[in-house]
């Protein structure tokens, strides 16, 4: 990625996107993990519900850790992710349980339940990972002991509190259009744009379309994301387009989102749903 930026000596670099959610994780049974994320204004929608952007990153963290453990001695890359959220469910924290449904020779499939701290249903998720032979520069999850609830690469006690959405550095360039610079703080270990950050771009681009066509309170609740190629060259852009038109009641729309690198190469394709809660 960042051709203007030297690779950090260790992954993740300070204030990397995966460190900004304040997530905790715990290994439960086998390779099944539980994750927790506090729902603060920087990760919430206008209605106060956990945002698609934050849920995409939580799935990336919890699912990625579980997948890395399940795929040993191989390594994994996210191939696709689906997130389904119930709109306007206001909770203090999200509890995310991941379960590996299939560990094949070439792919690994997971499913997620998303609930509030008192068991309120928040949503569901699924992911597919591609399993490949291990290189030496992957995130070192094996040396971590995930037994017992513990912070996932937390910010230091003297660091500024996280401002998740702001710190990603997304720019809204117009209705349905969002861009981001290629920086190591939003990249994965091989320098490509992190999958959770891509979910945030998809959320922001689709929601901005909803603000124009539906209402200022519109929020994206649902995404099916196919990661096609690594997004290496920035700035990267997400472009959302309407499918058909808004519902006649003016309360929802479907959009497609294309994530393109600086050369216009399609890196990710997603479909989304935006609603007025």
């Amino acid at each position: 990625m960042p051709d203007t930026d030297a690779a950090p000596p260790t992954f993740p670099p300070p204030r990397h996107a995966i460190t900004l959610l304040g997530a905790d994780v715990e290994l439960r049974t086998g390779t099944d993990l539980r994750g927790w994320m506090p729902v603060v204004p920087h990760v919430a929608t206008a209605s106060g519900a956990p945002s698609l952007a934050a849920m995409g990153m939580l799935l990336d963290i919890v699912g990625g850790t579980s997948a890395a453990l399940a795929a040993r001695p191989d390594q994994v890359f996210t191939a696709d992710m689906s997130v389904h959220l119930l709109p306007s469910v206001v909770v203090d924290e999200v509890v995310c349980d991941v379960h590996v449904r299939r560990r094949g020779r070439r792919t690994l499939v997971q499913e997620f339940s998303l609930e509030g701290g008192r068991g309120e249903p928040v949503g569901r998720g699924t992911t597919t990972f591609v399993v490949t032979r291990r290189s030496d520069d992957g995130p070192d999850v094996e040396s971590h002991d995930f037994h017992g609830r513990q912070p996932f690469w937390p910010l230091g006690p003297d660091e500024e509190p996280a401002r998740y959405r702001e710190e990603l550095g997304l720019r809204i360039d117009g209705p349905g259009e969002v861009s981001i610079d290629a920086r190591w703080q939003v990249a994965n270990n091989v320098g490509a744009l992190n999958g959770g950050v891509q979910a945030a771009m998809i959320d922001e681009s689709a929601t901005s379309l909803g603000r124009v066509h539906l209402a200022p309170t519109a929020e994206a609740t649902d995404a099916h994301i196919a990661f096609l190629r690594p997004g290496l060259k920035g700035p990267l852009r997400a472009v959302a387009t309407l499918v058909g038109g808004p519902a006649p009641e003016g309360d929802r729309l479907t959009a497609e989102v294309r994530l393109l690198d600086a050369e216009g190469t399609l890196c990710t394709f997603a479909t989304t749903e935006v609603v007025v809660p």
Partner: protein
Amino acid sequence: MTDTTYGARQIDREERRFLPTEVFEQPEDPNGLPVLDLHLDDLPFLTDAEGRITTGALLAACDSVGGLACGLAVLPRWIVTTNLTVRRAPSALHDGRGTGPLRIRADVLRAGRSAAVARLSTFDRDDVEVATGWITSAALVPEDGPPQHARPFHRKLHPLSDDPSACPRMEDFFGVRAGASSTEGWLDLTEPRRNMWGILLGAGVAVLIEHTALAAVAGVPVGDPTPHHVLSDLVIHYLSPGRVGPVVATAELIGRHGADDMVKLDLRDVGADDRPLTTAVATVRRVGRAGSS
């Protein structure tokens, strides 16, 4: 490496004409990847009570044309479907909108050594996009080589009868039946319900999921009518092929918001030690009278 679990068999395509379609290959895209169009008529045995082509039929058609496009993209290998998503636009689920024949375009977004991905765009007769989705496939080396197709590809599948009233609905072709509750549906794996690999047709998975999800939300036995309910969004992950049967689908209601219900669905091959076949998450939308209640 040859995949010995996938050897193409001779099958009687005549008895599998439950979904009449016509597929045309279009000129390749600028990257040299295949583009296919599938035309799906709104025949009465493919439509719901509101006159829309059912999501089960739409899914089956998407699986068919998307899989074909991915297969042509990875020749001389072939593919099996690993994921399928379809999302119907809300503007096309209102009153009489979204009715009529549909055209599904499959354009391959990526074709690699081990996988291919295609976008699936569905248009109505006025060329308005009414649904979107994508399909992913894993490439494999079939024991007897890939299916042979003339290029540019063209295929027309006629209905089983010229008389539409004599044609079975998809749920009847696949013998979808109720289980112990409204959250359970079954089908048997008979020969016409298998594809050339000997496994349950993707259309069978689609129609079983659709009917189990609709029944779970409507609170009626699987197979009973569910007017004013539409499966509006779905992601299916195919975990393993259905080879023995019977196949059971179970639905779990996750939550409701407005006119939408979120449903999680799992399919198992009971005859193969309850092997998991698919996991899926769906949205069922109540439209018209049910949606406004």
